[in-house]
Each structure stands twice: as C-alpha cells, then as structure tokens.
C-alpha cells in the first residue's frame, strides 16, 4: 500500500505517524513545498518574539524522526490530482502515484484587494520565509501597522509588541476578534491593548497603500492616513484548494469541483474524512468536515482539528474504519498577557440560555451558553486554570442537572459543576 500525503503541516505529519503505527509495511510519502523540515505555523509568533529559534517551530525534534519511521518527506509542490489514474502531478513536471491520498495542504493567507497591497514592506505572517522578512523589518522603534485583528492578527500582535515596535492595529470589523469574541470580550481586549500602548482602530478599512522613500503610507476610510515602516497583513486565510482546479480526469466536474473532488469553502469530507473521490481523503485547514456543534460541514483552521483529522483520516486510509464525531471549534489566545478562549457555540444556540459574569476592573469575563441543561458554548477572558473542562463539558454533553440553577447565577462555578457531574461515580 502506498500512501501519499500532500502537505507537511500538523495534519499531514500526524497522519503519516498514525499510518506507520498501524500499517507497518506501507510506503508513506509526505510532499511539502517549503524547504524547511515540517514546522508549525502556530509557533511562528514565538519566533518573532525571540522566544525560540527556527528549530523551535519544528513539529518534531530529533534529527532522524522521519527516517526512523521510514516516512519519506519530499520537497515538491503538488499541481494537480488525477483521481482516475490515482496520480498527483508535481511542480517539476513529474508525478507520483498513490493507492490512498491525503490532501492536507492547509490554508494560505488572503490579502485584501487594495491598491499597493503588493508593495515592498507589506508582508504576510504565515510561513517561516514570511517570518524572516517580518523579523528584518520589525526593529525596536519601527512603525508597524498590523492589518487584521482576528485570531491570527492578535497572536502576531503579541509578538510584534514584544519586539518593541510602535504598533497600530487596523481592523475592518467593529471590534477585535469578531469571530472569536462577543462585543463585551472584544471591547475588553481592545481596552487592554490601548492601556498597553497599542493603538487599535476598529471599524477602519485600509483603502490604499503607497510607498515612497522607503516609507509606506496607508490611506483609510476613517481618520488620518497612517505612516509605517512595515505592514503586516493578517486579514484571513483560505483553504489551499487552488491546485485542484483545471486538473483531473473526472467527467462532469467544473470549477472548484474539478478532479472529482468536491469543494465548498474547503474540500468536503465525510465522517471518515473521505472526499467525494475514491481513496482520496482530506484533513486540517483545507478540509471542510463535520462540526461537532452544528452537524454541518465546516472549515476549522485550528491545531486540534488538524491533528484529529490527520489521525482519523489515517486510520480510515489504512482500513481501520473509524468514524469522526466532528470537530469542536475552539481557540485560545494571549493578547499582551490577557488570555482568552472560545469554545463551540459561544454565540448561543437557538432557544438556549446564557449566563455571564463580568469583572471589568480585573479584565475577567465568562460566558456560558446552554441548551437544556448542557453547555454548548463558552467564552472566557482571564481564565487560565482548568479551562479545558469547558471543552470536556461541551463535547461529552454532560447533563448539569441541579448545577444548572447554580450556574445561572454564577457561571464561575463551572469547575465545581464539572467535578460533581463527571467524577460523581468515583466518589
């Protein structure tokens, strides 16, 4: 059996390791299009903050990890998939055939379509190559504009601030973290940033970037233009499905659904992580798979989903039929020392109820969302202890029973509720 994995991120690497464990005699090839050993994009902010060197971002340590597992990691860019011939076209003109294919090509950053966005000094912060350019440009005292205050933007924000730059953050939406935080939490984080010397301009759109004399000038739709030495663009990412377009032999396919591999926002996968094409699986940021909370197919571009996808896809590829119960949307973030997290249906379920606790002076906030007597979503600011039980409670659908009434008045008792509801039998 020959397994080919396109993509050397967490989903691809976990899949390769899982395949090796349960299918010892198979051939396993990972295709990655970057020159470095498999690394974690998630660790890049810590490289920018000078907490680790480049090798600190590597997914696996030990010089011979992949050789020991007899996993071939090949630097090659996939340019198409022929699902009839079971072959992946490569950028060098060659091809590699497969018995089972895993597409784990991740996501790529999207830049807003504004004039001057491709100017020198306007960088993404996605790859190690990007990180080197940002490191070179973000010197102490440099004027840096960060476009986008979403999840990735806020992680980069922390790292840039640690570099001692003069930072201005520009966000189109009316608050920071519009997809991870509600108004209360977003406003709290914005105030926290402002009080630490970071200028945050929400509800502001950059309309153009001009470069002159080594300096960048950003025009905006509200207020004065902003001068910068460096612009870091963190305005979102999009699943890497482009390479599937225009290739393949399947009849009756068109557009994004070419190669017989159906796409929505990402590559559509079922509860086995299988795509619409036989023997082709997808995992991680590129996959649009079952969501635990909604039952719909969603793209969850987060690390826990990538590794769960990688593992389950590999089990199914090797013939160990394993259903995936769906991924839980969740995030955790440190914004200049203020830790926030979000889980599941934090915006609430239809017909459900909510319990909140706000402490503005200590920048603490907890919001629990219920459906019947179960927690289906949560937001937390300033909570670092036992935060994982929020996932545990949501994903095990624990009935809160009598604790429901107590949590209505005080959601901060959630850890006690968890212990009594789950450890009861052991006592």
């Amino acid at each position: 059996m020959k397994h080919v994995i396109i993509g050397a991120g967490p989903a691809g690497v976990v899949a390769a390791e899982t395949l090796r464990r349960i299918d010892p005699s198979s051939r396993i090839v990972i295709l990655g299009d970057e020159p470095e050993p498999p690394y974690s994009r998630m660790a890049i902010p810590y490289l920018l903050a000078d907490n680790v060197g480049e090798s600190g971002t590597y997914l696996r340590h030990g010089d011979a990890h992949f050789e020991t597992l007899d996993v071939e990691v090949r630097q090659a860019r996939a340019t198409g998939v022929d699902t009839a011939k079971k072959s992946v076209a490569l950028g060098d003109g060659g091809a590699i055939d497969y018995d089972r294919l895993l597409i784990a090509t991740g996501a790529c950053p999207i830049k807003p379509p504004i004039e001057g966005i491709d100017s020198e000094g306007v960088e993404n912060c996605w790859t190690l190559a990007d990180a080197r350019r940002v490191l070179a440009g973000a010197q102490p005292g440099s004027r840096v504009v960060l476009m986008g205050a979403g999840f990735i933007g806020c992680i980069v924000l922390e790292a840039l601030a640690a570099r001692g730059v003069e930072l201005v953050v520009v966000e189109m939406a009316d608050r920071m973290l519009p997809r991870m935080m509600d108004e209360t939490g977003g406003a709290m984080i914005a105030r926290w940033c402002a009080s630490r010397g970071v200028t945050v301009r929400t509800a502001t759109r950059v309309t153009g970037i001009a470069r002159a004399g080594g300096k960048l000038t950003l025009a905006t739709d509200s207020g004065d233009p902003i001068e910068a030495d460096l612009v870091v663009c963190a305005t979102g990412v999009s699943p890497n499905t482009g390479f599937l377009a225009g290739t393949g032999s399947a009849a009756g396919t068109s557009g994004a659904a070419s190669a017989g591999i159906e796409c929505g926002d990402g590559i559509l996968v079922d509860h086995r992580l299988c795509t619409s094409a036989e023997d082709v699986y997808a995992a991680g940021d590129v996959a649009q798979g079952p969501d635990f909370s909604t039952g719909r197919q969603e793209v969850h571009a987060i690390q826990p989903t990538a590794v769960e996808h990688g593992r389950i896809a590999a089990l199914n590829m090797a013939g160990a039929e394993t259903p995936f119960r769906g991924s839980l949307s969740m995030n955790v973030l440190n914004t200049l020392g203020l830790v926030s997290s979000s889980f599941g249906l934090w915006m609430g379920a239809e017909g459900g109820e909510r319990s909140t606790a706000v402490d503005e002076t200590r920048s603490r906030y907890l919001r629990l969302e219920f459906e019947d007597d179960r927690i289906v979503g949560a937001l937390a600011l300033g909570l670092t202890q036992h935060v994982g039980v929020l996932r545990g409670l949501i994903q095990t659908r624990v009935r809160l029973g009598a604790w429901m009434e107590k949590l209505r008045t005080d959601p901060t008792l959630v850890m006690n509720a968890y212990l009594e509801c789950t450890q009861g039998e052991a006592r």
Partner: protein
Amino acid sequence: MHKALLIDPHKCTSCMQCELACSFEHTGAFNPARSRIKIFEFEHGARSIPYTCTQCEEAWCLHACPVEAITVNLATGAKEVDANVCVGCKVCTIACPFGTINYSADTGKVVKCDLCGGNPQCAEACPTGAITYVDASWTGLARMQASAVAAHGQPGA
C-alpha cells in the same frame, strides 16, 4: 506496570498538604496557587475533591502540542512538559477535556502533573490516604478510568 495516583475524595480533609508539597517540589516555594493538584471544596468545605491529571491514555495535550513539547516518560507513563520546548501557545490547555494542563503566566509555559518522576509528593504528603500512588492494575483505578471514558466519550477522537 505503571503506577498511578489513586484519589479517594471521601478521605480528603482539605488540609492542603498535597498542594503545598506539589508547589514546593516544582517551584521551591510553598504556594498552593502554583500546585498542579488542586482541592475543590463543596458545601463550604464539608466535602472536597483533590483533582489532577490522570495521565490518560488519549493524551490529548500531547497530541495537540504543535512543537512536541509533551512526551511520555517511559518509566512512569507520565505525560511531561519540556519547558525548554514549550512555546506557551496554550493549545493543550483547551484540548485537554479534563482541564488538567494549565498555563502559568509566571513562566510563560504550561504545567501539569509529572508524577514527580515516580515519587509523587502529593501522595507522600497526604496524611489520610486520600491520595495514594498504586499499581495501575488496581481494580478501583480501572473503575475510575471506565467512568472517565464514559464521561468523556470516544477516546482519542
């Protein structure tokens, strides 16, 4: 056969010796806020539950780590954080459904129970036998793990 912490909340008097011993072992100071085992009190202290990592087979924290900072100590079975490798991203803290790996703002890293390398100080310090370090094949532990699996659903998925 690995040994495991066996916790019997009925015997816990909330004396805090475990938290003091744990924090001293790991930080050199008696500071319950930095203990990796935590006593939760109910009904104003009438009942209490000591709570820490069970070194679960699923090892959600280990698998979620993006930089391989969490590894299994083959001698004890403990999932241990290498503070030199941990970047402090906290993904493990939301991935662990038991909430037993936590971020420490003091160090900028995550911390969890490491069984003190095979000589857990909480069990040493517990005066009532509420926390013991026993052979993992002990039947009561199997029962506890079964209830943990029942509560947490499909392992590893």
